[in-house]
């Protein structure tokens, strides 16, 4: 075969396989939307499950996921931004800072079910928090840390060095420089990272299995030490644990979860694109 023919063949194969990757993604999203859109109604979003969860809505699960996402944010934002400032502004390239980086990489790679085990062992049992919103938020928050840290660090490093020099030459201290010059410029990037991390946390099931998720709980949680329902776990329950569930409720729940998570991802992407366009240095 001539080299040109080989190229044609190779490019044909490569294009086909790229299509094999992309087309199923579109199909999956469209399929869930088409199958689930019929179930969406005001009642479905705002009513509690009734009659063994086969009727009514999924409001406690939606609300539970929102509460958990908020709790996750409270845990991971201060710690994550702090660690990112440390890596970007304070850490010198020594053994200690390399260990911190290695720790973050490993945190990013630990399976979510292992986070669930850790949450059970450390928060639910050792700290005696019980299966509660606070235990679940801590578990999800720690799982989300590496995402927040790495994006926030990247955003801080992207602020030009001159900004820091000018600020310090005018007599500002290190922290004044960080707070008044670096962080404001890095903020859109940091927010993008936080939202991406939260969207991942909102869709996770394994870490909340043993730390917070309730099978069926029509009453809303009253305090942070209560259990709560959550959308991902609810989807698992109604698709595998409860026989005779109407299909519309299952697909409807999947659609609500998908929309919630993908809209968070979309918001993060939009902030990132706008930020890149508006950057004036």
């Amino acid at each position, binding site marked *: 075969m001539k080299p040109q023919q080989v190229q044609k063949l190779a490019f044909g194969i490569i294009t086909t396989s790229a299509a094999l990757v992309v087309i199923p993604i579109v199909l999956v999203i469209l399929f869930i939307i088409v199958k689930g859109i019929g179930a969406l109604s005001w009642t479905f979003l705002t009513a509690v499950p009734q009659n063994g969860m086969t009727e009514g809505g999924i409001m406690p699960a939606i609300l539970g996921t929102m509460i958990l996402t908020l709790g996750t944010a409270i845990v991971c934002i201060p710690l994550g931004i702090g660690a990112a400032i440390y890596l970007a502004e304070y850490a010198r390239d020594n053994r200690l800072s390399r260990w911190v980086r290695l720790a973050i990489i490993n945190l990013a790679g630990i399976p979510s079910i292992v986070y669930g085990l850790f949450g059970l062992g450390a928060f639910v049992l050792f700290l005696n928090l019980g299966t509660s919103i606070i235990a679940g938020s801590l578990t999800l928050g720690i799982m989300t840390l590496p995402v927040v840290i790495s994006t926030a660090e990247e955003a801080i490093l992207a602020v030009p060095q001159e900004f820091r020099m000018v600020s310090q030459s005018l007599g500002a201290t290190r922290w004044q420089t960080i707070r008044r010059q670096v962080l404001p410029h890095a903020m859109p990037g940091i927010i993008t990272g936080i939202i991406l991390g939260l969207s991942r946390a909102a869709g996770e099931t394994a870490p909340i299995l043993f730390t917070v998720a309730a099978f069926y709980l029509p009453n809303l949680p009253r305090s942070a030490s209560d259990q709560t329902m959550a959308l991902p776990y609810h*989807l698992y329950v109604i698709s595998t644990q409860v026989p005779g569930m109407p299909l519309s409720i299952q697909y409807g729940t999947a659609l609500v979860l998908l929309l919630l998570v993908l809209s968070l991802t979309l918001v993060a992407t939009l902030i990132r694109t706008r930020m890149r366009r508006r950057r004036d240095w």
Partner: protein
Amino acid sequence: MNLAQIAKRQYVERRPNAQTIRGWLRRNWLEWLIEVLIRAAGFSTILIVGLIFVFLLREGLPTFLDIPLRQLFSSRWYPIESLYGLWSLIVGSILVTAGAVIIAVPLGLTTAIYLGEIAPQWQREILKPLIEMLAGIPSIVLGFLGWMVLAPLIQTMGASTGLTAFSGSLILAYMALPTIISISEDALYAVPKTYRDGALAMGATQWQTIWRVVLPAARSGLMMSMMLGIGRAIGETMAVMMVTGNAANVPDFGPTMFFSPVRTMTATIAAEMGEVSQGSMHYNVLFGIGIVLFLITFGINSLAGRFVGRVVRRRGGQL
């Protein structure tokens, strides 16, 4: 006064006295406190990894102390009869992960080549967000689709059941694809343009350039993408639990083994932890499986570590 005296006097005057030091301290204790807090936040990541391991050990260590190794490596997992053979679970995890790698690596590498070397700009701008979107779909949603659609589909194609290792592999492959694609693409992007120009100037076709110059130059990064894809696949829980059939047995070796039901380590923890009583041997063994998973992923990620740090940051924090 001569010059030396003037210099000395100025030095004395500029030396801070007790009062200025107090003022300096008042202004700076906040600065100092904040720096301590920021450093503490940084070091807390090391502490957290340590704590995760410590708590896994605390609950799971009896597995390796009280159960004879021979039993742990047997393939009989019957917790009711106190038989804790992990072999069938390990084989289950390996089988599903291997299947995922066989599917995902060729698809991922070729898609990365397509995006990085062949696709026009407008396609790139559509395809990249789409692949990011795939990374954003919760695993439970993919597992749900696998359970509702994929498994019945596989069954109609002639398998005795649709809940097989292959179903798990297929879903895992698509979950690992975003990782593999973006890290491979980064590796291709890192190959200097001069390499390509050189090859093309020698009269090589675009494909010859990719195949003989770009791919070999990006080799180490491509290897990393596969390893991280494996790391991602082996730790996945919910989707796998829903579609692999959860039968703790070791299928006969051969191509048909991909089409028999298996049970993975992750699925075992997720499925059984809710039912065990705390402190029982069964409970300890489930944490023991957690230790095994932690060590596997820790090994993979530490190995890939130097490369990954860059990649994680460039990818906006997601592996």
